[in-house]
Structure formats: structure tokens, C-alpha cells
């Protein structure tokens, strides 16, 4: 047995010994497991307390309405808002659609300009493109190589025709946190509404609609250990934000969003917010330590690993790395005991490299080998250590098989090679 094969066998054996029974879930930015405490809070509203919260004439309805209003308070509390400013939606996708199309639909006769950013979630970008077809003028701000927008560029983009600026709080792929308070102050001084997609941020980092001068904010349930199928949109009352409803009907949610409210899901989102609010300070520290352990553990043993997104302004539970000299699909196969993703879940089935990484200027090869590690409430030190082993072993193995890696080790500049044409 040659030395390399021996090494490979050893690494494989170590990985084999440590192999967990189920894959290690490190995809908390795609979705989170529902916290058992949230499930417990929800279950009675599926069964015994099943009333329609809009039935104003009997106690079945009142009981549900009370639960929905308590949830609304819990959501308002975690973002420093008034409960009357929170409306329930079917999720952050709907919240983002409603914020963009609703505000622009209401104001487009007078103010016809929307500013957003190239690294936003697909539902924001698709809504913006749809508005463009309807005659709205849209500016897509670029980002700097660290993933953050340049405030001077934003300021220069605002015109008297600008109605709305929509910049996400924390990015779903690379976890970078935008300078929200600065954006909010700028928008307020220019008389422009500020919407932020905070699906990844609420419950993870402190969010305050007053301090950050936010006018609209999208919130997701399933990203914060609540159920899927529920979200919220914060809509400021003073100064009042006017928007056009998208779903018409019974006039629920103060006319901004019709449809029977799903009481158990509302309760779940409220409870998820309450738990996150209580535990955030400690949990953020814990996750940061785990995330840094993962980052250090990988980079101490592997050269040519690149962090995507700003090192400091990022979510505690996100690490996005690119591995040079390996091939993307091979890498995903090599770490199949880790449930991670190479980008956002919505587009994870596609083989296109992430548009977010491309916007940062990451080259195509590195964009193809990026891995998003999403850590969360149930991630343990043991899981992180096993993840380090898996990643180091898979990358080392793939590099040993790679002629490019061999050449790089020998000091050959690959870009200087003139490949034969076939």
C-alpha cells in the first residue's frame, strides 16, 4: 500500500468510526426544526381550541382571537414594534411580495422608483422584475467584495422619485448583516420608505424598528424554530406606511391581507419569537463560538479555503466557505453525512453557481465549490467536530486526486498554462 492510500484508509476509518446515525443537520438557513416548546404551544390550537379567530360572536372565536393577539404582541416585542403594526402572512415570501408590490402599487403614480440590491432573496428580485414590467423603475445596487452595500452608492441612487428602498437584514447564503441603522437613517432623512427582509435576522441578532428606522420588515416562522407557512410583515403606523393589499377577501389584518388566520401557526410564530428573544444573547455567543471552531478547525488543516462574505458583520450561525482545487459535486458527495447546501434551498436543485457569490466577485470555480454551513439551536460541539473531520477528509481526498492541486503544490501557476485545443 502506498503512503497516500494508507493515509486515505486512515482518514476514512476515522470518519467511519465517528459516523453519526443520522446526517448532521447544518442547513439552518434553509429551515429550522420546530422547537418542541413551540410545538407544545401550537398543538392545543389544532385540537381543542379550533375556533375561527374571526368569529366575533362566540367563545370559540374569542379564544382563538386572544391567542392570535398574544402572538402578535410577542412578534412586535422582538422587533420593538406596536402589535397593531404586525400583520400575519403565509411566510416571508408573501411578506416580501406584499411589501414591494403593495408599496409600489400604492405610490407609483407619484413616486415610481424602487431601490434594492443584487444579493437579495429571489422573491425580492422576482417581485422587483415584475414591477419593472409594470413600469416601475428599479435600481439594483451592487455589493462590495465583502457582501455589504456601499452607503454612498445608496445615497447617490436615491432620487425625488424614489418611494422605497428594500435591503435585506442578513443574507441567506453568506450571512452578512447590512448596516441597517445607517440605511434607515439615510432613508428617513430622504423621505423614502425602508423595507428590510429580516427572515434570517429576527431572533438571531437584535432588530429594532425604532433604532434602525425601519418602515417595513418581513419575518419568517420556519427560520426561527417556528412552523412553515407563517410569517409576518411589520408595517409602520407613525409615520404611516400605505400599501395596496395583494390578497382580497374578508378584510382580515386591517384590510392588508385577507384570509382566515391559522391560529396554531400564529401561536407558533409568537412562541418562537418569545423563545428567541429570551435566549438570543447567550445563544448568539454559543453559536459564534461553534462557528469559529468550525472555521478554525477547517482552515488550520486545509490551505486554500476562502470565506465568503464579511468576517465580522455576519450572522452568528453562518459560515460560507469555498474550497479551491476540488470539484463542487464531488465535494457534496464526499460530505454526504452532512446536510449542508451549496446555496439557497429554493435554487439548490440547480447546478448554476450562486448569483450572490457572483455578485461578490467570487470566480466561477470557487463559486461552484462553496458550502453554506448553517448552525443553529440544536447544533452541538460533537457535531461540529465531526463536520470538521468530514470536510477535511473529503477535501484532502479530492485534492489528492486532482492534477491541478498537484501542479499548484509544485508551484505551477495554473492560469499560465496554455491548454491544448481539441
Amino acid at each position: 500500500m502506498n503512503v497516500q492510500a494508507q493515509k486515505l484508509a486512515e482518514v476514512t476509518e476515522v470518519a467511519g468510526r465517528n459516523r453519526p446515525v443520522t446526517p448532521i443537520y447544518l442547513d439552518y438557513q434553509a429551515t429550522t426544526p420546530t422547537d418542541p416548546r413551540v410545538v407544545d404551544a401550537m398543538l392545543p390550537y389544532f385540537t381543542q381550541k379550533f375556533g375561527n379567530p374571526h368569529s366575533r360572536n362566540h367563545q370559540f372565536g374569542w379564544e382563538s382571537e386572544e391567542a392570535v393577539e398574544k402572538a402578535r404582541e410577542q412578534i412586535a416585542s422582538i422587533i420593538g414594534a406596536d402589535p397593531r403594526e404586525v400583520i400575519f402572512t403565509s411566510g416571508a415570501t408573501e411578506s416580501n411580495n406584499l411589501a414591494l408590490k403593495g408599496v409600489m402599487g400604492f405610490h407609483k403614480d407619484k413616486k415610481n422608483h424602487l431601490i434594492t440590491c443584487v444579493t437579495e432573496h429571489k422573491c425580492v428580485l422576482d417581485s422587483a422584475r415584475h414591477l419593472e414590467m409594470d413600469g416601475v423603475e428599479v435600481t439594483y445596487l451592487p455589493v462590495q467584495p465583502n457582501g455589504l452595500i456601499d452607503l454612498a452608492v445608496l445615497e447617490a441612487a436615491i432620487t425625488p422619485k424614489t418611494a422605497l428602498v428594500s435591503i435585506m437584514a442578513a443574507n441567506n447564503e453568506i450571512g452578512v448583516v447590512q448596516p441597517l441603522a445607517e440605511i434607515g437613517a439615510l432613508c428617513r432623512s430622504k423621505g423614502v420608505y425602508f423595507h428590510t427582509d429580516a427572515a434570517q435576522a429576527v431572533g438571531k441578532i437584535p432588530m429594532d424598528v425604532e433604532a434602525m428606522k425601519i418602515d417595513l420588515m418581513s419575518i419568517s416562522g420556519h427560520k426561527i424554530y417556528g412552523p412553515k407557512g407563517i410569517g409576518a410583515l411589520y408595517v409602520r403606523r407613525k409615520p404611516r406606511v400605505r400599501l395596496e393589499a395583494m390578497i382580497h377577501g374578508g378584510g382580515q389584518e386591517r384590510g392588508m391581507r385577507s384570509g382566515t388566520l391559522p391560529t396554531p401557526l400564529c401561536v407558533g410564530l409568537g412562541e418562537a419569537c418569545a423563545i428567541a428573544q429570551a435566549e438570543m444573547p447567550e445563544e448568539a455567543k454559543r453559536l459564534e463560538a461553534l462557528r469559529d471552531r468550525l472555521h478554525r478547525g477547517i482552515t488550520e488543516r486545509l490551505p486554500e479555503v476562502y470565506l465568503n462574505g464579511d468576517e465580522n458583520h455576519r450572522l452568528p450561525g453562518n459560515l460560507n466557505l469555498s474550497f479551491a482545487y476540488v470539484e463542487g459535486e464531488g465535494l457534496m458527495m464526499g460530505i454526504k453525512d452532512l446536510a449542508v447546501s451549496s446555496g439557497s434551498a429554493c435554487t439548490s436543485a440547480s447546478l448554476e453557481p450562486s448569483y450572490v457569490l457572483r455578485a461578490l466577485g467570487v470566480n466561477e470555480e470557487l463559486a461552484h465549490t462553496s458550502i453554506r454551513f448553517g448552525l443553529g439551536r440544536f447544533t452541538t460541539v460533537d457535531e461540529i467536530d465531526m463536520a470538521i473531520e468530514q470536510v477535511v477528509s473529503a477535501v484532502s481526498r479530492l485534492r489528492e486526486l486532482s492534477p491541478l492541486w498537484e501542479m499548484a503544490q509544485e508551484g505551477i501557476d495554473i492560469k499560465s498554462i496554455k491548454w491544448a485545443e481539441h
Partner: protein
Amino acid sequence: MNSSVYMDYNASSPIRAQAAAAAGAALQLGGNPSSVHGAGRAARRMMEDAREQVAASIGAAAREIVFTSGATEANNLALGGTGRQRRLVSAIEHDSLRGASGLELIPVTAAGVVDLAALEGLLAADGAPALVSLMLANNETGVIQPVAEAARLAHRHGALIHCDAVQALGRLPLDVGALGIDLLSLSGHKIGGPAGVGALYIRGGLDLAPALLGGGQERGRRAGTENLAGIAGFGAAAAIAAEELADFGRIAGLRDRLEARIHAARPEAVIFGRDAARLANTTCVALAGVPAETQVMVLDLAGVAVSAGAACSSGKLKPSTVLRAMGVPPALAGSAIRVSLGWRSEAGDIDRFIETWSGISVKASRELAA
């Protein structure tokens, strides 16, 4: 107070044990149905099983089902997505359809049935591409609409037809092929599934523009991470829709008993839609001179839950648009309540209702108001 009696199934049905169990199981399963790893695939499998169940309950193929946040969204999607220039909507549709702007209303007869001759007249009057929307059974009166005939008329004039079947699933045999419809809305919580989930059936091959844009879920027709718990619960409830239907003979018996006792106790009471085919669980009854709100309040104090119209508008005090469309005078419409039964209803509930309701008088209501 005695234990409560729930007679407001058309607003929301208590959840079925199977549906609650399925929703609970889904809540405990991690995974985003769009993720490619094992956790994501398990979530997707659960979702696709539910899609099969919902599709089977209406005789559709799974790929023709798009999950939404409820019937309100499904109705909005159907109405907005076909791009048809004219939209003909019956005068008794739910607010999620009637609330849109630029509609043409199809009148109904005094019995509460859509006027097909009027529909034909409307279709013939203008050749522009049209969408017709007609519900299968009305939420307030329970009156069943001639949807298959309306579909034939619509198609003869090149129009598409949408059907709000929210109140019909589990209460009427439902087959999209036999009805000949193009689009059909369903609700989870009306059939013993959870609230916050619904579906739109879109006939295979029909083009429909999405309203929610984003991650391209639901074959590009409805973006947003799917409500897995809701969908699983909806699937389980749809799977027992046939069982629910089999129980409807019993419920019809209860409703007939209710109406006989209403008639015996208060011969002056008016029951709406009695001359038409109705859902076997719904009674819409007016007691002239006694405001509906008073009746509902008195009944609630006695622990009996009924409603003064559709739940979504029951906070408002305007008389029912459905009854007005049937030509009921506003004063009488304002004294109508809806009693709707379902799978947990039993004979004792009828007795409890009659005990309280039969004693409500004009005089008592004046005293209460004073």
C-alpha cells in the same frame, strides 16, 4: 355554563384526529421541501403524499394541485392568474372573489341559485375572453349551484370556469372531470384539516400566472416555503373526505330535525334556500324583528356557537350580501343566523339550540338592547 355546543362548521371545522396527528408529525420533521439533502427529501415526500391525497379527493392528478395559504389565496390566484379580460362572478360568491374590482356579477334567483339564463346572456353579449366563477355550495345558505351546467355554458362561449368548492368537499361528491371545470379552490380548515392551508386545482395544460414570486416552488405557480404541517394535515383530512361524505346521511337527519323543531317552536321563522338543493348541514334562518347579533349573543351566553353570516365579515354589522342578492329585504336579512353542523354534531346539540333560541322574543331583544 354547560359544556359548549359548536354549530358553526361552515366557519371552521374542529380538526380531525388524523389531521392533527399528521400536522404534529410534520412539525417534528425538520427539513425544507426544496433542499436536496435527506432531510429535505423526507419533507418533500411528506408533501407529495399529501398532494396525492388532496388530488384523489377531487378526482384530479397530483401535478394539478398547487398548495396555497388557504382558499382566499386560491380564489385570488384563480381570479388574477388567467389574464382573462372579463370576469363574471356570481353575486353570492365569497368576499375573496366578490371583493375584486372590475367584475361583472351574475344574478341569483330568489331561491339562491345562480341564474343560468342571465349567465348565458352575459357570455353572449361580449366576445372578449372571459372567466366565470361559480361556487359549488354557498357558505351562508348551503344552496348548491349548477356548476356542471355553468361549465358547459362557459366552455361553449370560449370562457374558462373557476369553482370555489370550499364548502363542498366532504359534503358533496366532488369530481373535477365530471364537473368539467378548469380551476377549483379548496380549504383545509373547512374539512377538518388545519387553517392556513388550501389548494388550487389547475387543470393540466392551463396556463396560470403566479401572484407570489420567488423561489419557484409549486412548479413556479406559488413561491414560498410550503406550510408542511398544514399540508400534511390537509392531506390527512382530504383522505377521509369520503368518510365524511358517508356520514352526511346522519347529518341530514339532524338538520331536518333542527328545521322541524324550528318550525314547531317559531312558525313565523323564515328558512332561506329551502326551495333549492342545499348542503345537508346548513340552515340559514331569520327571526323577523330580532337582530341576528342578539340571537347570536343570547345563544353564546348559553354556550351555543352559531354565526350571523360568514365568519370573516361577522365583525361587521352589514346585512349579508348573499341574502340581499336573493332579494331578501334588509330588515329580514339582518335577523338571519346560520347554523351549520358537522362531524361532531349530535342530537343533543339540536335540543340545546332549540331550548335557548325558541325563547328569544322581540320583547326580550328590546330589553337586552336597552
